[in-house]
């Protein structure tokens, strides 16, 4: 497979990402939307290229050399993914298309085989739609009841009523990091409380896996879902990790090729883990690309990734508040240590779409909208927010460019 370029110190990582050499509207590209999707380093692009140029074949089928190479590359990516989250076994890692497909897999295969009318699922007000809508669908179909953990005014989970909310619950679905507030949730004690109440724990790690060290065992999770494209990998690849005994007991999700040991006229026998949950030709190149992204992140070191983002977020919060005073208002925890590099903000009463539009004219990419978290938008009492989010390739110049562009917003609208 392709050689993985050894990443340099974080200050120089920007040059590893070819797209960041682009100019937008004549300006240096300042990409501050990594919470939506991350840019890709050359090493990931090379891995995709190399796979298609040198090894492309379908997996788990052919006996010829290419098929064996493709299968080995695909399964090596699974092993890397398992190690990345400290999973006890690669057999517990199911490749999916995305976090969304992973949560839907849990709702379909575990939810529909386990839950009946009146069963309780506990979610939080800060969940992404990916961890809300599958449960609404199950509620409509099965009469499952949803309960919600509310938020404190500073954007943390309000655990005052946790024991009552968890009473009789079958599942706690919770995000490890809010994609809007940036709040880092302390999953381990939540999982302990859920288990004590007899509930399983599904962790949405879409915003956590790219930025923090994930250890599924230490978290005490039962299911954990994340996406490749937010962690420097390609789109179209995600993963569901789950405890082996749960996966063994669950019926398959999608049916088709690859996921069977036998198919007869009167039925079928599913195959073993993890392929039981991977019907059809999987996203092979994308998995290989995810493996390369994991290599890259581990080359940098997840502790270094977190330290970099923490320092950048602290700089952003302090410098922008210093510059704009209370015209720049941040949603979520005030202490950078309690949040990821996601910064949703209100700016001088200008609509987020107008903020994002003017910022784009300065080459600055931020997200404007509800961030697929409409229940949270209602709690915050806003229709939309503007959101800047940082990753390994951002630096203080990017934060300063955001500040300069916000000055242009003020000139236009205030």
């Amino acid at each position, binding site marked *: 497979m392709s050689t993985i370029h050894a990443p340099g110190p974080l200050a120089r990582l920007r040059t590893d990402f070819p797209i960041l050499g682009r100019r937008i509207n004549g300006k240096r590209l300042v990409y501050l939307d990594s919470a939506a999707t991350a840019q890709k380093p050359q090493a990931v692009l090379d891995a995709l290229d190399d796979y298609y140029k040198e090894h492309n074949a379908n997996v788990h089928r052919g006996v010829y050399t290419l098929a064996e190479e493709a299968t080995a590359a695909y399964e090596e990516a699974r092993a890397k993914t398992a190690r990345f989250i400290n999973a006890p076994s690669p057999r517990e890692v199911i490749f999916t298309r995305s976090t969304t497909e992973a949560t839907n897999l849990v709702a379909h295969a575990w939810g529909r085989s386990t839950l009946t009318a009146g069963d309780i699922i506990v979610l939080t007000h800060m969940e992404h739609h990916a961890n809300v809508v599958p449960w609404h669908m199950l509620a409509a179909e099965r009469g499952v009841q949803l309960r919600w953990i509310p938020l404190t005014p500073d954007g943390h989970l309000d655990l005052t009523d946790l024991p009552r909310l968890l009473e009789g619950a079958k599942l706690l679905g919770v995000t490890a990091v809010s994609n809007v507030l940036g709040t880092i949730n302390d999953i381990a004690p939540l999982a302990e409380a859920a288990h004590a109440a007899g509930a399983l724990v599904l962790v949405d790690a879409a915003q956590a896996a790219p930025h923090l060290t994930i250890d599924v065992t230490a978290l005490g999770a039962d299911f954990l879902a994340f996406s490749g494209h937010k962690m420097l990998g390609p789109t179209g690849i995600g993963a569901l990790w789950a405890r082996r005994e749960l996966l063994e007991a669950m019926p398959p999700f999608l049916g088709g090729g690859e996921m069977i040991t036998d198919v007869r006229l009167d039925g079928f026998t599913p195959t073993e883990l993890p392929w039981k949950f991977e019907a059809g030709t999987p996203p092979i190149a994308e998995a290989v690309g995810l493996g390369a992204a994991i290599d890259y992140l581990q080359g940098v070191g997840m502790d270094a990734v977190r330290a970099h983002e923490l320092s950048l977020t602290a700089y952003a919060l302090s410098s922008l508040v210093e510059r704009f005073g209370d015209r720049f208002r941040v949603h979520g925890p005030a202490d950078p240590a309690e949040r990821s590099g996601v910064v949703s903000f209100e700016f001088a009463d200008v609509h987020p779409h107008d903020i994002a*539009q003017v910022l784009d004219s300065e080459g600055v990419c931020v997200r404007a909208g509800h961030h697929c978290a409409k229940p949270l938008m209602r709690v915050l009492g806003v*229709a939309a927010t503007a959101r800047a989010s940082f990753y390994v390739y951002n630096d203080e110049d990017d934060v300063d460019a955001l500040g300069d562009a916000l000055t242009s917003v003020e000139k236009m609208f205030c």
Partner: protein
Amino acid sequence: MAGLEDLYREIILDHYRSPRNRGELPVPPARKLEGFNPLCGDEIVLYVDVDDGTPEGAAISDIRIGGQGCSISQASSSMMGAAVRGKTVAEARKLIRAFKALMSIHESRLEGDGDGEDLAAELEGVKLGDLEALQGVVKFPVRIKCATLAWNTLAQGLDEDASEAAS
């Protein structure tokens, strides 16, 4: 590449800063029409008084606008209110059609209701006036939905009126 000045023309910013016809009308007799842009959460509430008894046929005798949204949706709704107030329903429909054509002729072709009519045909005999300032929005495709929210909401309301009258 389109510049910001194409989007944020001075007259648009003026309508955004000082929106016309803001407020509510008593319901009934006014109709309350609500529109929603799920992409950005913008919402619009129109209060429309339709007078069926004018010599020219049904006419929009009064309109008030509520809701919240970005500068483009706010300005577009304000400009629409000023443009349709006092117009007959038939004239308003023609204006809506002309405005949507101004926003995106391709859209109507895709939906198959344009029959290849070009912008000139849609606009024939229609005076857009200040509304033409919104033409720059077309260069920013994501924002077209912001500009058309109020117009689609009004169009839907007038169509409901028509179907009620027919039934």
